[in-house]
């Protein structure tokens, strides 16, 4: 039972390291925020323009009525699976190495979900009526149609968003208390409010940990359900290559896959920018990289399965889409996706020599690109080649969609930067708690014990 684990600095050091970004601000921060903010403002302006001038300024057309927006929706909801799901699983299995990782993962969830949930609004023809999805008792009693997958989405995303925000927020309470006690003036008041009067009594600690356990138990099935329901948006419609039972697990696996990739990228940037080398070790990246390798294999298995079944079934309309993605118009995108999602992670993550932080980041960037393409290739070729060839059509995005898409990446980064500025990005109390493990707890991951096995 070592109180001076070689992996982690002493508690005071932890606190000062992790609170530094909150208390010191360099000019680079302002430049970055201004830059990202400008892109976000441009994206919002693009959306307002779309609402004012009409949806026609987008590239959506008959019969490809979903394009970049829904691709982005599925993509960001997928990215959101990085955090809460991973962190909940790791919490439940009590993987010691999770401690520095969980919060930066959960933040991804919260923000990616907020951004993802924007897209159903952005893509609405009449976004000002979006509240009709909400089951409020209207005078005419036409409540939402519970048989519509979009209403399922509404409920699932709301539950997941609520859960994820709380899941993120709860372990922040003790950290807010830390900041509260070190800050002055206005800041002290704000963090005081955020800390909800946290003191640190045994009851509070116990209740918090119990609540986190319940949340972890609850959030895992919700996370699975969210992406299954997102897949239902497609698989409930009789569209070639959409109506398949594999979509649920396929989407969940893909979501976790892209989520891990997103997390690795975020962690690498945090490590570099906030100098968290002492907290985010290569071993964290290696562990996540191994997880990503598993997901790459799973993804490859699902794609193989999907393609084989289609090929063998040889249905005329399915084969339309099949050939269009594999050999015709969409082939370049399709094979790029395969390389990014399968070949690249398999080579980099599969060979231990390449499983460095740099290697993980390269593979992750590939996966993020590949998974975005995967969603695009699920949506556009199928919609463009639906049964009656007379009604075939193609889609190409217009500036408004590209600006909004770029804007969401900027928004994600901006929110992340601001979050890291105002909240310790690594849970301080969870790290310091490591130094006083209860007999039941498992020590953190170290170079010698990469998975955090119990010290004998």
């Amino acid at each position: 039972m070592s109180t001076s684990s070689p992996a982690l600095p002493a508690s005071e050091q932890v606190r000062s390291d992790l609170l530094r970004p909150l208390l010191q601000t360099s000019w680079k921060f302002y430049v970055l925020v201004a830059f990202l903010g400008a892109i976000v403002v441009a994206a919002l302006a693009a959306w307002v323009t779309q609402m004012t001038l009409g949806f026609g300024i987008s590239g959506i057309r008959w019969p490809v009525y979903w394009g970049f927006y829904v691709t982005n929706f599925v993509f960001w909801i997928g990215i959101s699976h990085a955090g809460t799901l991973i962190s909940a699983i790791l919490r439940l299995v009590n993987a010691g190495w999770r401690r520095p990782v969980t919060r930066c993962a959960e933040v991804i969830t919260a923000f990616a979900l907020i951004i993802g949930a924007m897209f159903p609004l952005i893509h609405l023809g009449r976004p000002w009526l979006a509240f009709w999805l909400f089951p409020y008792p209207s005078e005419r009693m036409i409540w939402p149609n519970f048989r519509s997958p979009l209403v399922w989405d509404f409920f699932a995303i709301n539950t997941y968003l609520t859960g994820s925000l709380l899941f993120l927020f709860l372990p922040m309470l003790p950290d807010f208390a830390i900041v509260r006690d070190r800050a002055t003036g206005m800041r002290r008041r704000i963090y005081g409010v955020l800390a909800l009067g946290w003191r640190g009594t045994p009851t509070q600690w116990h209740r918090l940990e119990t609540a986190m356990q319940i949340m972890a138990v609850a959030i895992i099935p919700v996370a699975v359900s969210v992406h299954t329901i997102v897949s239902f948006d497609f698989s409930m419609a009789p569209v070639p290559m959409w109506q398949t039972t594999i979509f649920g697990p396929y989407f969940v696996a893909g979501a976790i896959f892209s989520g891990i990739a997103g997390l690795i990228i975020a962690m690498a940037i945090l490590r570099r920018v906030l100098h968290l080398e002492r907290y985010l070790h290569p071993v964290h990246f290696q562990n996540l990289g191994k997880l990503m390798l598993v997901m790459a294999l799973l993804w490859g298995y699902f794609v193989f399965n999907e393609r084989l079944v289609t090929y063998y079934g040889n249905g005329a309309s399915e084969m339309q889409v099949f050939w269009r993605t594999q050999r015709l118009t969409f082939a370049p995108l399709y094979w790029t996706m395969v390389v990014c999602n399968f070949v690249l992670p398999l080579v980099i993550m599969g060979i231990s020599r390449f499983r460095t932080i740099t290697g993980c980041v390269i593979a992750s960037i590939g996966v993020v690109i590949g998974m975005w393409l995967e969603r695009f290739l699920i949506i556009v070729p199928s919609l463009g080649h639906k049964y009656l060839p007379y009604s075939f059509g193609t889609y190409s995005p217009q500036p408004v969609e590209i600006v909004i898409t770029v804007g969401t990446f900027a928004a994600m980064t901006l929110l992340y930067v601001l979050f890291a500025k105002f909240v310790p990005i690594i849970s301080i109390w969870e790290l310091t708690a490591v130094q006083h493990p209860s007999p039941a707890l498992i020590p953190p991951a170290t170079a010698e014990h990469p998975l955090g096995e119990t010290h004998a």
Partner: protein
Amino acid sequence: MPHRWGMAADLDRCNGCGACVVACAAENNISTVGAEQAALGRAKHWIRVERYWEGEFPDVRLKFRPVMCQQCDNAPCEPVCPTYASHHTDDGLNAQVYNRCIGTRYCANACPYNVRFFDFFNPSWEKPLQLQLNPDVSLREVGVMEKCTFCVQRIKAVTVQVAAEDRELKDGEITPACVQSCAAKALVFGDLNDPESEVSRLSHSPRGSKLLEDLGTLPKVTYLPRDTEA
């Protein structure tokens, strides 16, 4: 017994002239989108005459097939709509309530026939073209889906009239604009619940088939293929 509206398209009569396409636009206030938007795939034709080449020169044939909303009994467009904008009426029509539509365009994706069209902009008519607009048909605002209604305004007008006169509906009394314009009488409209109606007779013809029948959408438009015997 409620009515159950259906249509039959005799492809041996249809010659592909396109009169139904313009008749539909005229009756239903379908706005013309112009060349630029048409090039972007925004033209709205609630009814279209599909044409498919078969064979190679000189043994080449061209097949015409008018396609409008098939008014499916198991319509994939309906359950996916979150706001009930798309739902089934008692007389078997796939209603599209423009005022309830929030523009998810999900119904259009779910529709295997691609007969649903989105209003990408507010409709506009260069004055005084707007004087032609049919006051019985609502105009569709930007952001809503629209589609063939079997000219529900004509159905309503006649059924209300028939009820007021307290008599039975005569077969052929109701004609959607496309049916009315068709010189070759390729399109027949009527009540499928009336076993004596022309459309019932044609729907039960052994020649008849439904479009994409194997999807199980139970369309109410029957296609009678072109005979091949010379």
